[in-house]
Protein backbone atom coordinates (compact mmCIF):
# COMPACT_ATOMS: atom_id res chain seq x y z
CA UNK A 1 0.00 0.00 0.00
CA UNK A 2 1.38 3.42 -0.96
CA UNK A 3 2.42 5.45 2.06
CA UNK A 4 1.16 9.02 2.13
CA UNK A 5 3.23 11.59 3.98
CA UNK A 6 0.44 13.55 5.60
CA UNK A 7 2.91 16.05 7.04
CA UNK A 8 4.00 17.00 3.53
CA UNK A 9 0.92 16.38 1.39
CA UNK A 10 1.52 16.22 -2.35
CA UNK A 11 -0.68 18.21 -4.75
CA UNK A 12 -1.85 14.89 -6.25
CA UNK A 13 -3.00 13.58 -2.89
CA UNK A 14 -4.79 16.85 -2.08
CA UNK A 15 -6.58 16.69 -5.42
CA UNK A 16 -7.46 13.05 -4.84
CA UNK A 17 -9.11 13.95 -1.50
CA UNK A 18 -11.01 16.87 -3.00
CA UNK A 19 -12.48 14.64 -5.69
CA UNK A 20 -13.18 11.71 -3.40
CA UNK A 21 -14.93 13.77 -0.72
CA UNK A 22 -16.93 16.56 -2.37
CA UNK A 23 -18.24 18.98 0.25
CA UNK A 24 -19.35 22.60 0.49
CA UNK A 25 -17.16 24.98 -1.54
CA UNK A 26 -15.99 27.11 1.38
CA UNK A 27 -15.21 24.04 3.48
CA UNK A 28 -13.26 22.62 0.55
CA UNK A 29 -11.35 25.90 0.35
CA UNK A 30 -10.27 25.94 4.00
CA UNK A 31 -9.39 22.24 4.09
CA UNK A 32 -7.37 22.56 0.88
CA UNK A 33 -5.59 25.64 2.23
CA UNK A 34 -4.76 23.73 5.40
CA UNK A 35 -3.10 20.94 3.43
CA UNK A 36 -1.27 23.30 1.09
CA UNK A 37 0.23 25.13 4.07
CA UNK A 38 0.97 22.07 6.17
CA UNK A 39 4.56 21.54 5.08
CA UNK A 40 5.27 25.17 5.91
CA UNK A 41 6.60 26.50 9.20
CA UNK A 42 4.91 25.75 12.52
CA UNK A 43 2.90 28.36 14.33
CA UNK A 44 5.20 31.07 15.66
CA UNK A 45 4.16 33.06 18.71
CA UNK A 46 2.70 36.43 17.85
CA UNK A 47 2.98 39.43 20.11
CA UNK A 48 0.16 41.66 21.23
CA UNK A 49 1.95 44.50 19.40
CA UNK A 50 1.83 42.56 16.12
CA UNK A 51 -1.86 41.80 16.55
CA UNK A 52 -2.57 45.41 17.45
CA UNK A 53 -0.78 46.58 14.30
CA UNK A 54 -2.69 44.07 12.17
CA UNK A 55 -5.99 45.09 13.73
CA UNK A 56 -5.20 48.75 13.09
CA UNK A 57 -4.42 47.95 9.47
CA UNK A 58 -7.73 46.14 9.11
CA UNK A 59 -9.68 48.97 10.76
CA UNK A 60 -8.06 51.60 8.55
CA UNK A 61 -9.83 49.94 5.62
CA UNK A 62 -13.15 50.09 7.49
CA UNK A 63 -13.16 53.39 9.39
CA UNK A 64 -12.87 56.80 7.80
CA UNK A 65 -12.22 58.69 11.05
CA UNK A 66 -9.23 58.52 13.40
CA UNK A 67 -9.18 55.80 16.06
CA UNK A 68 -6.80 54.32 18.58
CA UNK A 69 -6.45 50.92 20.22
CA UNK A 70 -5.45 50.39 23.85
CA UNK A 71 -5.49 47.85 26.69
CA UNK A 72 -4.58 44.81 24.60
CA UNK A 73 -4.42 41.53 26.55
CA UNK A 74 -4.69 37.82 25.93
CA UNK A 75 -7.87 35.88 26.64
CA UNK A 76 -7.90 32.16 27.32
CA UNK A 77 -10.77 29.76 26.75
CA UNK A 78 -11.53 27.35 23.95
CA UNK A 79 -9.21 24.91 22.29
CA UNK A 80 -9.26 26.40 18.85
CA UNK A 81 -8.54 30.10 18.29
CA UNK A 82 -6.35 32.89 19.69
CA UNK A 83 -8.20 35.73 21.35
CA UNK A 84 -7.00 39.24 22.15
CA UNK A 85 -9.14 41.69 24.10
CA UNK A 86 -8.68 45.40 23.42
CA UNK A 87 -10.43 48.74 23.65
CA UNK A 88 -11.20 50.73 20.52
CA UNK A 89 -11.44 54.51 20.91
CA UNK A 90 -13.39 55.70 17.88
CA UNK A 91 -16.24 57.69 16.49
CA UNK A 92 -18.89 54.99 16.58
CA UNK A 93 -21.63 55.48 13.98
CA UNK A 94 -24.83 56.62 15.66
CA UNK A 95 -23.14 56.92 19.04
CA UNK A 96 -20.24 59.34 18.73
CA UNK A 97 -16.87 59.21 20.44
CA UNK A 98 -16.73 55.91 22.32
CA UNK A 99 -14.36 53.50 23.99
CA UNK A 100 -15.60 50.04 23.00
CA UNK A 101 -14.22 46.80 24.46
CA UNK A 102 -13.66 44.32 21.61
CA UNK A 103 -12.17 40.88 21.00
CA UNK A 104 -9.99 39.79 18.09
CA UNK A 105 -10.51 36.07 17.39
CA UNK A 106 -7.81 34.72 15.09
CA UNK A 107 -6.93 31.28 13.75
CA UNK A 108 -3.58 29.70 14.49
CA UNK A 109 -1.65 28.10 11.61
CA UNK A 110 -3.82 24.97 11.91
CA UNK A 111 -6.61 24.62 14.44
CA UNK A 112 -8.20 21.60 16.08
CA UNK A 113 -11.22 22.57 13.98
CA UNK A 114 -10.21 23.97 10.61
CA UNK A 115 -13.08 26.27 9.71
CA UNK A 116 -13.96 29.41 7.79
CA UNK A 117 -14.02 32.81 9.44
CA UNK A 118 -16.22 34.01 6.58
CA UNK A 119 -18.89 31.41 7.39
CA UNK A 120 -18.64 32.20 11.09
CA UNK A 121 -19.04 35.93 10.42
CA UNK A 122 -21.96 35.47 8.05
CA UNK A 123 -23.97 33.12 10.25
CA UNK A 124 -23.58 35.31 13.32
CA UNK A 125 -24.66 38.36 11.32
CA UNK A 126 -27.64 36.37 10.06
CA UNK A 127 -28.65 35.34 13.59
CA UNK A 128 -28.31 38.83 15.10
CA UNK A 129 -31.62 39.80 16.67
CA UNK A 130 -32.90 36.23 16.51
CA UNK A 131 -30.86 34.67 19.29
CA UNK A 132 -28.24 36.33 21.49
CA UNK A 133 -24.92 36.47 19.65
CA UNK A 134 -21.85 38.56 20.30
CA UNK A 135 -21.79 41.69 18.15
CA UNK A 136 -19.52 41.17 15.15
CA UNK A 137 -17.77 44.15 13.64
CA UNK A 138 -15.14 43.36 11.02
CA UNK A 139 -13.51 40.40 9.34
CA UNK A 140 -10.12 39.67 7.84
CA UNK A 141 -11.39 36.61 5.99
CA UNK A 142 -8.16 35.67 4.24
CA UNK A 143 -5.49 36.95 6.64
CA UNK A 144 -4.67 40.03 4.56
CA UNK A 145 -3.98 42.30 7.55
CA UNK A 146 -3.37 39.86 10.39
CA UNK A 147 -1.07 36.83 10.40
CA UNK A 148 -4.09 34.54 9.98
CA UNK A 149 -7.82 35.02 9.24
CA UNK A 150 -9.65 36.77 12.07
CA UNK A 151 -12.88 38.38 13.23
CA UNK A 152 -13.34 41.41 15.49
CA UNK A 153 -16.14 40.80 17.96
CA UNK A 154 -17.89 42.92 20.53
CA UNK A 155 -17.03 41.97 24.09
CA UNK A 156 -20.05 39.98 25.23
CA UNK A 157 -20.83 40.12 28.93
CA UNK A 158 -21.30 36.98 30.98
CA UNK A 159 -19.78 33.67 32.08
CA UNK A 160 -19.73 30.21 30.51
CA UNK A 161 -20.11 28.52 33.90
CA UNK A 162 -21.09 29.59 37.39
CA UNK A 163 -18.27 31.59 38.98
CA UNK A 164 -18.02 29.01 41.74
CA UNK A 165 -18.18 25.97 39.47
CA UNK A 166 -15.21 24.00 38.24
CA UNK A 167 -14.72 22.29 34.88
CA UNK A 168 -11.97 20.73 32.83
CA UNK A 169 -10.67 22.15 29.55
CA UNK A 170 -13.12 23.44 26.94
CA UNK A 171 -16.08 23.51 29.35
CA UNK A 172 -16.34 19.73 29.68
CA UNK A 173 -17.56 18.71 33.13
CA UNK A 174 -19.25 21.96 34.18
CA UNK A 175 -21.75 21.64 37.05
CA UNK A 176 -24.95 23.69 36.98
CA UNK A 177 -26.53 24.25 40.42
CA UNK A 178 -30.22 23.29 40.81
CA UNK A 179 -31.48 26.82 41.42
CA UNK A 180 -30.49 28.08 37.97
CA UNK A 181 -31.32 25.02 35.86
CA UNK A 182 -34.90 25.90 34.93
CA UNK A 183 -34.16 29.44 33.81
CA UNK A 184 -31.08 28.56 31.78
CA UNK A 185 -32.61 25.32 30.48
CA UNK A 186 -35.68 27.00 29.02
CA UNK A 187 -33.55 29.57 27.18
CA UNK A 188 -31.27 26.77 25.99
CA UNK A 189 -34.32 25.10 24.39
CA UNK A 190 -35.90 28.28 23.06
CA UNK A 191 -32.73 29.51 21.35
CA UNK A 192 -32.21 26.18 19.66
CA UNK A 193 -35.80 26.16 18.45
CA UNK A 194 -35.39 29.69 17.05
CA UNK A 195 -32.15 28.72 15.30
CA UNK A 196 -33.69 25.66 13.71
CA UNK A 197 -36.80 27.48 12.48
CA UNK A 198 -34.90 30.54 11.23
CA UNK A 199 -35.71 31.36 7.58
CA UNK A 200 -32.20 31.03 6.16
CA UNK A 201 -33.45 31.24 2.57
CA UNK A 202 -33.53 35.02 2.87
CA UNK A 203 -30.28 35.33 4.81
CA UNK A 204 -27.02 36.73 3.46
CA UNK A 205 -24.97 33.57 3.87
CA UNK A 206 -23.19 33.25 0.54
CA UNK A 207 -20.41 31.11 2.01
CA UNK A 208 -22.92 28.32 2.64
CA UNK A 209 -23.96 25.93 -0.11
CA UNK A 210 -27.71 25.41 -0.07
CA UNK A 211 -28.58 21.73 -0.02
CA UNK A 212 -31.52 20.20 -1.81
CA UNK A 213 -34.09 18.22 0.17
CA UNK A 214 -33.15 14.62 0.82
CA UNK A 215 -29.67 13.55 1.82
CA UNK A 216 -27.48 16.11 0.06
CA UNK A 217 -26.65 18.09 3.23
CA UNK A 218 -25.78 14.90 5.07
CA UNK A 219 -23.62 13.59 2.22
CA UNK A 220 -21.65 16.84 2.26
CA UNK A 221 -21.25 16.54 6.03
CA UNK A 222 -20.13 12.91 5.85
CA UNK A 223 -17.64 13.82 3.12
CA UNK A 224 -16.42 16.75 5.20
CA UNK A 225 -15.66 14.66 8.29
CA UNK A 226 -14.32 11.63 6.49
CA UNK A 227 -12.03 13.95 4.57
CA UNK A 228 -10.81 15.44 7.86
CA UNK A 229 -10.19 11.92 9.16
CA UNK A 230 -8.23 10.99 6.04
CA UNK A 231 -6.24 14.22 6.02
CA UNK A 232 -5.25 14.26 9.66
CA UNK A 233 -5.40 10.81 11.24
CA UNK A 234 -2.20 8.97 12.06
CA UNK A 235 -3.30 5.53 13.26
CA UNK A 236 -6.21 4.03 11.36
CA UNK A 237 -9.05 2.89 13.65
CA UNK A 238 -11.13 -0.07 12.40
CA UNK A 239 -14.20 1.10 14.32
CA UNK A 240 -14.13 4.44 12.50
CA UNK A 241 -14.11 2.63 9.14
CA UNK A 242 -17.03 0.47 10.18
CA UNK A 243 -18.96 3.47 11.46
CA UNK A 244 -18.51 5.55 8.32
CA UNK A 245 -19.67 2.63 6.18
CA UNK A 246 -22.78 2.30 8.36
CA UNK A 247 -23.44 6.06 8.27
CA UNK A 248 -23.29 6.08 4.48
CA UNK A 249 -25.61 3.10 4.12
CA UNK A 250 -28.23 4.50 6.49
CA UNK A 251 -28.50 8.18 5.61
CA UNK A 252 -31.89 9.57 6.69
CA UNK A 253 -33.36 12.29 4.46
CA UNK A 254 -33.90 15.65 6.11
CA UNK A 255 -37.52 16.86 6.39
CA UNK A 256 -36.64 20.47 7.22
CA UNK A 257 -33.28 22.03 6.43
CA UNK A 258 -32.22 24.16 9.40
CA UNK A 259 -29.33 26.33 10.40
CA UNK A 260 -27.22 23.99 12.51
CA UNK A 261 -25.01 25.60 15.12
CA UNK A 262 -22.67 22.62 15.08
CA UNK A 263 -21.39 22.97 18.66
CA UNK A 264 -24.55 23.82 20.62
CA UNK A 265 -23.80 22.91 24.20
CA UNK A 266 -23.02 23.93 27.73
CA UNK A 267 -19.78 25.89 27.62
CA UNK A 268 -20.64 27.62 24.37
CA UNK A 269 -23.01 30.25 25.70
CA UNK A 270 -22.46 33.17 28.01
CA UNK A 271 -24.99 34.17 30.64
CA UNK A 272 -25.13 37.02 33.10
CA UNK A 273 -25.21 35.73 36.63
CA UNK A 274 -27.28 38.55 38.16
CA UNK A 275 -30.35 37.87 35.98
CA UNK A 276 -29.56 34.39 34.50
CA UNK A 277 -30.02 35.68 30.97
CA UNK A 278 -28.15 33.98 28.13
CA UNK A 279 -26.30 36.92 26.64
CA UNK A 280 -24.45 35.29 23.71
CA UNK A 281 -24.17 32.05 21.80
CA UNK A 282 -20.55 31.48 20.84
CA UNK A 283 -18.52 29.33 18.46
CA UNK A 284 -20.66 29.21 15.33
CA UNK A 285 -17.69 28.11 13.23
CA UNK A 286 -19.07 24.58 12.65
CA UNK A 287 -22.45 25.87 11.49
CA UNK A 288 -24.05 24.58 8.31
CA UNK A 289 -27.44 23.91 6.76
CA UNK A 290 -28.66 20.47 7.74
CA UNK A 291 -30.71 18.27 10.03
CA UNK A 292 -31.72 19.64 13.47
CA UNK A 293 -31.08 16.26 15.05
CA UNK A 294 -27.35 16.92 14.88
CA UNK A 295 -27.64 19.83 17.34
CA UNK A 296 -30.19 17.99 19.48
CA UNK A 297 -27.97 14.95 19.77
CA UNK A 298 -24.75 16.93 20.25
CA UNK A 299 -26.21 19.14 22.97
CA UNK A 300 -27.35 16.02 24.84
CA UNK A 301 -23.94 14.33 24.90
CA UNK A 302 -22.87 13.01 28.28
CA UNK A 303 -19.75 15.16 28.24
CA UNK A 304 -21.86 18.35 28.09
CA UNK A 305 -24.13 17.66 31.05
CA UNK A 306 -24.18 15.84 34.36
CA UNK A 307 -26.32 13.72 36.64
CA UNK A 308 -28.98 15.21 38.89
CA UNK A 309 -28.79 14.86 42.65
CA UNK A 310 -30.54 11.47 42.48
CA UNK A 311 -27.38 10.09 40.84
CA UNK A 312 -29.41 8.60 37.95
CA UNK A 313 -31.09 11.29 35.87
CA UNK A 314 -28.86 12.76 33.17
CA UNK A 315 -29.39 16.48 32.69
CA UNK A 316 -28.81 17.94 29.24
CA UNK A 317 -26.46 20.92 29.62
CA UNK A 318 -26.74 20.31 33.36
CA UNK A 319 -30.29 21.69 33.21
CA UNK A 320 -33.04 19.38 31.90
CA UNK A 321 -33.71 15.63 31.74
CA UNK A 322 -33.49 14.46 28.13
CA UNK A 323 -37.21 13.64 27.78
CA UNK A 324 -38.15 17.06 29.14
CA UNK A 325 -35.58 18.73 26.91
CA UNK A 326 -36.90 17.14 23.73
CA UNK A 327 -40.56 17.67 24.66
CA UNK A 328 -39.95 21.35 25.29
CA UNK A 329 -38.03 21.59 22.01
CA UNK A 330 -40.93 20.11 20.06
CA UNK A 331 -43.32 22.59 21.66
CA UNK A 332 -41.04 25.56 21.07
CA UNK A 333 -40.09 24.74 17.49
CA UNK A 334 -43.14 22.96 16.16
CA UNK A 335 -40.72 20.40 14.75
CA UNK A 336 -40.81 16.70 15.63
CA UNK A 337 -37.95 14.84 17.23
CA UNK A 338 -37.43 11.54 15.46
CA UNK A 339 -35.83 8.93 17.76
CA UNK A 340 -34.28 7.08 14.81
CA UNK A 341 -32.60 10.21 13.53
CA UNK A 342 -31.46 11.02 17.06
CA UNK A 343 -29.77 7.64 17.12
CA UNK A 344 -28.23 8.24 13.69
CA UNK A 345 -26.84 11.62 14.72
CA UNK A 346 -25.53 10.19 18.00
CA UNK A 347 -23.26 8.06 15.81
CA UNK A 348 -22.53 10.87 13.37
CA UNK A 349 -21.60 13.24 16.20
CA UNK A 350 -19.22 10.81 17.78
CA UNK A 351 -17.55 10.17 14.42
CA UNK A 352 -17.19 13.94 13.95
CA UNK A 353 -15.91 14.50 17.51
CA UNK A 354 -13.34 11.73 17.15
CA UNK A 355 -12.20 13.07 13.77
CA UNK A 356 -11.63 16.42 15.50
CA UNK A 357 -9.92 15.32 18.69
CA UNK A 358 -8.11 12.19 17.56
CA UNK A 359 -7.18 13.02 13.96
CA UNK A 360 -6.73 16.81 13.92
CA UNK A 361 -5.97 16.80 17.64
CA UNK A 362 -2.95 14.67 16.78
CA UNK A 363 -1.84 16.18 13.47
CA UNK A 364 -1.93 19.88 14.39
CA UNK A 365 0.28 19.65 17.52
CA UNK A 366 2.51 17.06 15.86
CA UNK A 367 3.51 19.76 13.40
CA UNK A 368 3.55 22.51 16.03
CA UNK A 369 0.72 24.34 14.30
CA UNK A 370 -1.28 25.79 17.16
CA UNK A 371 -0.73 28.33 19.91
CA UNK A 372 -1.54 25.71 22.54
CA UNK A 373 -0.26 22.36 21.31
CA UNK A 374 -0.11 20.99 24.83
CA UNK A 375 -3.82 21.66 25.38
CA UNK A 376 -4.78 20.12 22.04
CA UNK A 377 -2.58 17.09 22.72
CA UNK A 378 -4.14 16.68 26.15
CA UNK A 379 -7.64 16.91 24.67
CA UNK A 380 -6.89 14.12 22.21
CA UNK A 381 -7.07 11.73 25.18
CA UNK A 382 -10.85 12.13 25.30
CA UNK A 383 -10.98 10.26 21.98
CA UNK A 384 -10.90 6.89 23.67
CA UNK A 385 -13.98 7.32 25.89
CA UNK A 386 -15.70 8.74 22.78
CA UNK A 387 -14.67 5.70 20.76
CA UNK A 388 -16.02 3.45 23.52
CA UNK A 389 -19.32 5.36 23.36
CA UNK A 390 -19.30 4.92 19.59
CA UNK A 391 -18.65 1.21 19.98
CA UNK A 392 -21.68 0.73 22.21
CA UNK A 393 -23.79 2.77 19.80
CA UNK A 394 -22.62 0.67 16.87
CA UNK A 395 -23.39 -2.50 18.80
CA UNK A 396 -27.01 -1.32 18.99
CA UNK A 397 -27.42 -0.76 15.25
CA UNK A 398 -25.46 -3.63 13.74
Amino acid at each position, binding site marked *: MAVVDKNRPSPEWIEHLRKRYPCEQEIDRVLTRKLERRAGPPYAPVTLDLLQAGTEALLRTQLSEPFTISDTRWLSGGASKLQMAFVLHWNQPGVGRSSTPLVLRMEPSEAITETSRLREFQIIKAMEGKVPVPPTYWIDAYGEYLPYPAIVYGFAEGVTKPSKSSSSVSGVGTFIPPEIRETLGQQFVDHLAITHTFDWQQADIGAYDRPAAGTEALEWALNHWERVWEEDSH*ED*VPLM*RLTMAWLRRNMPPVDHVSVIHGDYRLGNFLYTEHDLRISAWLDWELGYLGDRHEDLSWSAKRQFGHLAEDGKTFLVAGCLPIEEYLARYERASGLKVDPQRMQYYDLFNNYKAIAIVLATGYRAPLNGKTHQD*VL*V*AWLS*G*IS*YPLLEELRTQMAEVL
Partner: protein
Amino acid sequence: MELRPSFQIPALIKSLTDVVLPAVDPANKLAQEQGQLVVAMLHLMAQRLPLQYHYDCHELKQFLGLADSLAAHGAALPELGESLAALATDVEAGRAVLSRAGVAPAELEATNLALRTSVGAAISASAMAADGPDTKAINAAVMAHAQEMLLRERAWLAMQGWEGPNAGLPAVETLIGD
Protein backbone atom coordinates in the same frame (compact mmCIF):
# COMPACT_ATOMS: atom_id res chain seq x y z
CA MET B 1 -2.53 4.77 21.04
CA GLU B 2 -1.60 8.23 19.85
CA LEU B 3 -0.56 9.73 23.17
CA ARG B 4 3.00 8.51 23.31
CA PRO B 5 6.09 10.45 24.40
CA SER B 6 7.30 11.13 20.85
CA PHE B 7 4.10 13.14 20.34
CA GLN B 8 3.77 14.56 23.84
CA ILE B 9 7.27 15.88 24.53
CA PRO B 10 7.47 18.38 21.62
CA ALA B 11 4.11 19.83 22.69
CA LEU B 12 5.45 20.29 26.21
CA ILE B 13 8.59 22.00 24.91
CA LYS B 14 6.59 24.35 22.70
CA SER B 15 4.23 25.29 25.50
CA LEU B 16 7.08 26.02 27.88
CA THR B 17 9.14 27.91 25.29
CA ASP B 18 6.39 29.94 23.64
CA VAL B 19 3.99 30.60 26.48
CA VAL B 20 5.14 29.69 29.97
CA LEU B 21 8.78 30.76 30.18
CA PRO B 22 8.28 34.21 28.64
CA ALA B 23 5.75 34.82 31.41
CA VAL B 24 8.06 33.81 34.25
CA ASP B 25 9.22 36.75 36.36
CA PRO B 26 12.70 37.71 35.08
CA ALA B 27 13.67 38.61 38.65
CA ASN B 28 12.97 35.08 39.87
CA LYS B 29 16.30 33.59 38.93
CA LEU B 30 15.55 30.19 40.45
CA ALA B 31 12.37 29.82 38.39
CA GLN B 32 14.12 31.13 35.26
CA GLU B 33 16.99 28.68 35.63
CA GLN B 34 14.83 25.67 36.36
CA GLY B 35 12.45 26.54 33.54
CA GLN B 36 15.34 26.54 31.07
CA LEU B 37 16.64 23.26 32.49
CA VAL B 38 13.21 21.62 32.14
CA VAL B 39 13.17 22.56 28.47
CA ALA B 40 16.73 21.34 27.96
CA MET B 41 15.95 18.07 29.72
CA LEU B 42 12.84 17.56 27.57
CA HIS B 43 14.92 18.17 24.42
CA LEU B 44 17.38 15.54 25.62
CA MET B 45 14.55 13.09 26.30
CA ALA B 46 12.98 13.70 22.89
CA GLN B 47 16.30 13.19 21.16
CA ARG B 48 17.30 10.04 23.02
CA LEU B 49 14.00 8.31 23.59
CA PRO B 50 13.97 6.52 20.19
CA LEU B 51 17.42 5.14 20.97
CA GLN B 52 16.82 4.14 24.56
CA TYR B 53 15.99 0.50 23.84
CA HIS B 54 18.98 0.00 21.53
CA TYR B 55 21.14 1.73 24.10
CA ASP B 56 20.09 -0.63 26.88
CA CYS B 57 20.56 -3.72 24.68
CA HIS B 58 24.00 -2.54 23.64
CA GLU B 59 24.95 -1.83 27.22
CA LEU B 60 23.90 -5.31 28.31
CA LYS B 61 25.84 -6.90 25.46
CA GLN B 62 28.96 -4.94 26.34
CA PHE B 63 28.75 -5.82 30.04
CA LEU B 64 28.32 -9.47 29.17
CA GLY B 65 31.57 -9.19 27.22
CA LEU B 66 33.34 -7.63 30.17
CA ALA B 67 31.93 -10.31 32.48
CA ASP B 68 33.30 -13.00 30.13
CA SER B 69 36.74 -11.40 30.28
CA LEU B 70 36.59 -11.24 34.08
CA ALA B 71 35.56 -14.88 34.28
CA ALA B 72 38.30 -15.98 31.87
CA HIS B 73 41.12 -14.05 33.47
CA GLY B 74 39.95 -14.26 37.06
CA ALA B 75 39.39 -17.99 37.21
CA ALA B 76 42.91 -18.58 38.46
CA LEU B 77 42.70 -15.89 41.14
CA PRO B 78 41.31 -17.19 44.42
CA GLU B 79 40.32 -13.65 45.51
CA LEU B 80 37.62 -13.62 42.84
CA GLY B 81 36.10 -16.98 43.66
CA GLU B 82 32.97 -15.77 45.42
CA SER B 83 32.43 -12.79 43.12
CA LEU B 84 32.77 -14.88 39.97
CA ALA B 85 30.17 -17.32 41.24
CA ALA B 86 27.68 -14.48 41.72
CA LEU B 87 28.72 -12.99 38.40
CA ALA B 88 28.06 -16.26 36.60
CA THR B 89 24.46 -16.24 37.83
CA ASP B 90 23.86 -12.72 36.54
CA VAL B 91 25.65 -13.44 33.25
CA GLU B 92 23.32 -16.36 32.67
CA ALA B 93 20.29 -14.18 33.38
CA GLY B 94 21.71 -11.42 31.16
CA ARG B 95 22.27 -13.74 28.21
CA ALA B 96 18.74 -15.08 28.55
CA VAL B 97 17.29 -11.57 28.51
CA LEU B 98 19.46 -10.48 25.58
CA SER B 99 18.40 -13.51 23.57
CA ARG B 100 14.75 -12.53 24.11
CA ALA B 101 15.25 -8.85 23.20
CA GLY B 102 13.43 -8.34 19.94
CA VAL B 103 12.91 -5.62 17.41
CA ALA B 104 13.23 -1.96 18.30
CA PRO B 105 10.09 -0.16 19.54
CA ALA B 106 10.08 2.17 16.53
CA GLU B 107 9.92 -0.81 14.17
CA LEU B 108 7.10 -2.32 16.20
CA GLU B 109 5.20 0.97 16.09
CA ALA B 110 5.70 1.34 12.34
CA THR B 111 4.53 -2.21 11.72
CA ASN B 112 1.41 -1.66 13.80
CA LEU B 113 0.71 1.51 11.88
CA ALA B 114 1.02 -0.21 8.49
CA LEU B 115 -1.17 -3.09 9.61
CA ARG B 116 -3.81 -0.70 10.92
CA THR B 117 -3.91 1.01 7.51
CA SER B 118 -4.31 -2.26 5.62
CA VAL B 119 -6.96 -3.49 8.05
CA GLY B 120 -8.84 -0.23 7.67
CA ALA B 121 -8.79 -0.46 3.88
CA ALA B 122 -10.07 -4.03 4.04
CA ILE B 123 -12.94 -3.00 6.32
CA SER B 124 -13.92 -0.18 3.98
CA ALA B 125 -13.80 -2.59 1.05
CA SER B 126 -16.00 -5.09 2.91
CA ALA B 127 -18.66 -2.39 3.23
CA MET B 128 -19.05 -2.51 -0.55
CA ALA B 129 -20.07 -6.16 -0.40
CA ALA B 130 -23.69 -7.23 -0.10
CA ASP B 131 -24.89 -8.09 3.40
CA GLY B 132 -24.39 -11.74 4.25
CA PRO B 133 -22.90 -14.06 6.85
CA ASP B 134 -19.34 -13.12 5.93
CA THR B 135 -19.87 -9.37 6.23
CA LYS B 136 -21.71 -9.94 9.51
CA ALA B 137 -18.76 -11.96 10.79
CA ILE B 138 -16.35 -9.21 9.73
CA ASN B 139 -18.44 -6.63 11.57
CA ALA B 140 -18.46 -8.81 14.67
CA ALA B 141 -14.70 -9.26 14.53
CA VAL B 142 -14.16 -5.50 14.26
CA MET B 143 -16.47 -4.89 17.19
CA ALA B 144 -14.79 -7.50 19.37
CA HIS B 145 -11.37 -6.10 18.52
CA ALA B 146 -12.58 -2.58 19.32
CA GLN B 147 -13.88 -3.64 22.72
CA GLU B 148 -10.54 -5.09 23.75
CA MET B 149 -8.46 -2.30 22.25
CA LEU B 150 -10.54 0.48 23.76
CA LEU B 151 -10.39 -1.01 27.22
CA ARG B 152 -6.61 -0.99 26.94
CA GLU B 153 -6.48 2.56 25.54
CA ARG B 154 -8.86 3.94 28.15
CA ALA B 155 -6.93 2.24 30.93
CA TRP B 156 -3.70 3.69 29.54
CA LEU B 157 -5.10 7.22 29.88
CA ALA B 158 -7.21 6.73 33.00
CA MET B 159 -5.13 9.30 34.86
CA GLN B 160 -6.50 12.04 32.61
CA GLY B 161 -9.84 11.59 34.37
CA TRP B 162 -12.20 11.81 31.38
CA GLU B 163 -14.39 9.01 32.75
CA GLY B 164 -14.30 9.98 36.39
CA PRO B 165 -13.04 8.02 39.36
CA ASN B 166 -15.75 5.34 39.11
CA ALA B 167 -15.12 4.21 35.55
CA GLY B 168 -14.05 0.79 36.79
CA LEU B 169 -11.10 0.57 34.42
CA PRO B 170 -8.60 -2.18 35.19
CA ALA B 171 -4.92 -1.37 35.65
CA VAL B 172 -3.36 -1.31 32.20
CA GLU B 173 -0.63 -3.67 33.40
CA THR B 174 -3.23 -6.42 33.64
CA LEU B 175 -4.26 -5.92 30.01
CA ILE B 176 -0.97 -5.99 28.17
CA GLY B 177 0.59 -9.21 29.40
CA ASP B 178 0.44 -12.29 27.22
